[in-house]
């Protein structure tokens, strides 16, 4: 019963998201796209976090996807649609190669290395003048769907749906067991037959592909990119704050956090033109100190408690 209700609610939300452009103008659609991009990044960051590995390199894979897609169009003459697919595969391939090296690392060593990788990608793009356009970046000959706001909204939504579907699959399949076991206790996981490296690699490659996908959609929607926007640290910071606020280790938590913070950020941007991101920093601090499970975790605990009380009430 409960399960069906939640599926129904999800379907309704999805339909609402799909028909939303009918009621919105170009500016709100633009905002919605930005929120959806951050949401997809937040969810994908969380997917890897479920194994206990904290990546600080979301922006790295995102930017890599942007550049792969843009350069595939410019240098290899691919169609924009094909270039998005290419970017996803490219990000996956890079992650696969890197994974063999960096997935041996744990805790702070892994985190800092992912941060460093992001810098490496940025510097490479910065310096390959002839190929990547250097610091000025590249401009595409055309924007996807001629810049039609509704169509761009839908393609971004499609990217988000793919991410959410992947995340739900991570939650419902045996990947959930494997990743949670690795996060909780690697030794126990190993003696229960879990091949730790294999599942870390799956999670790392899958999340990198999703981040690359969102980067590719972004670049095809705006028609240009440069190192400082493609590898903007905000693409790491914002998703991280969103996921933490909403509640990590779930799909719904990062989504809720993205909506809340995304809308709040738009409003704050108008109020405080410089430094509105301070709110993100403060939210990260406060969540870690006072609400480490995030809003979703808090709600779940509340629900469980009231449920337990009801059960107890019935018994007595």
């Amino acid at each position, binding site marked *: 019963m409960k399960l069906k209700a939640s599926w129904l609610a999800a379907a309704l939300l999805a339909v609402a998201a799909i028909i939303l452009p009918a009621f919105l103008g170009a500016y709100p659609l633009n905002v919605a796209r930005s929120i959806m991009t951050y949401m997809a990044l937040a969810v994908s960051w969380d997917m890897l976090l479920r194994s206990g590995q904290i990546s600080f390199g979301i922006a790295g894979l995102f930017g890599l996807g942007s550049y792969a897609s843009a350069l595939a169009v410019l240098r290899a003459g691919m169609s924009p649609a094909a270039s998005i697919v290419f970017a996803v595969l490219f990000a996956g391939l890079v992650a696969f190669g890197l994974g063999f090296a960096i997935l041996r690392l744990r805790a702070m060593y892994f985190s800092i290395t992912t941060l460093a990788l992001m810098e490496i990608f940025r510097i490479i793009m910065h310096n390959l003048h002839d190929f990547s356009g250097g610091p000025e970046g590249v401009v595409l000959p055309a924007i996807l769907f001629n810049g039609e706001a509704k169509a761009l909204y839908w393609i971004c939504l499609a990217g988000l749906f793919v991410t959410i579907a992947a995340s739900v699959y991570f939650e419902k*399949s045996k990947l959930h067991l494997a990743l949670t076991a690795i996060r909780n206790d690697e030794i126990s996981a190993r003696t229960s037959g*879990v*091949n730790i490296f294999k599942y870390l690699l799956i999670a790392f490659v899958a999340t990198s592909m999703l981040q690359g996908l969102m980067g590719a959609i972004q670049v095809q929607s705006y028609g240009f990119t440069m190192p400082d926007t493609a590898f903007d640290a905000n693409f790491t910071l914002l998703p991280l704050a969103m996921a933490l606020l909403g509640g990590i280790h779930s799909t719904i938590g990062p989504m809720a956090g993205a909506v809340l913070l995304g809308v709040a950020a738009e409003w704050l941007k108008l109020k405080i033109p410089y430094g509105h991101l301070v709110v993100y920093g403060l939210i990260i601090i406060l969540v870690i100190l006072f609400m480490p499970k995030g809003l979703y975790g808090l709600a779940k605990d509340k629900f469980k408690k009231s449920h337990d009380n009801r059960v107890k009430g019935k018994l007595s």
Partner: protein
Amino acid sequence: MSKLVTRELSKAFSGLVAVNKLSFSMEEGEILGIIGPNGAGKTTFIHLVSGILMPTSGQIEFKGKDITFSPAHERSRLGIARTYQLIHPLENLTVLENVMIGSVFSRGKNLKEARSAAEAICAELELDGLGRDTSQLTILEIKKMEIARALANEPEVLFLDEVMAGLNSDETRQMIGMVQRIAKEKRMAVGVVEHVMGVIRELTQRVIVLDSGELIAEGPYEEVSKNPRVMEAYLGGAA
């Protein structure tokens, strides 16, 4: 053929020899006690056999196959399972999921099959409330869950590292009955580490005694416990 054989198995940690040239074997359907004073190397020995640690020298064979350097997850798939002295529940999974994990990854079952297998094992161990978080369990329930998780691997060799510690006498009795039933029904070789000698006496057919990483005695408990070397290991030099 013996289920599990070790030959001259040794493990040294930066000079300190924790397990020293240990040779022994385990047979089908047998419950073997592994005893020895604190620091004798019992847990290190189980780590070596389950692949958590790799030996410095020596050999481990499982049903005639050399597994000395196989990774832990492969040994689990072959049929070696264990529990932990310090309880290791996977806190963010439910009880049922904790038990399922062995079925899924060691036996390659899909989630549905694994779920029903796990439910069956838990029913057999009289463990219920399977949707609960592990933080809601009592000590006895956690110990049962750990055993259930090991059994879900469908092992042929099972090591129980101090599963009785922290249980009261009724619970201990219940646990003894359970372990005996499992060993008999599933024709497993079970290795039991315990400090409570009453449990060892009741539960096992044969014991090996370790002291400073060496095997100092082997045989039925009644016999071994009168062995002067064993008395000395436990109580110190001759009185």
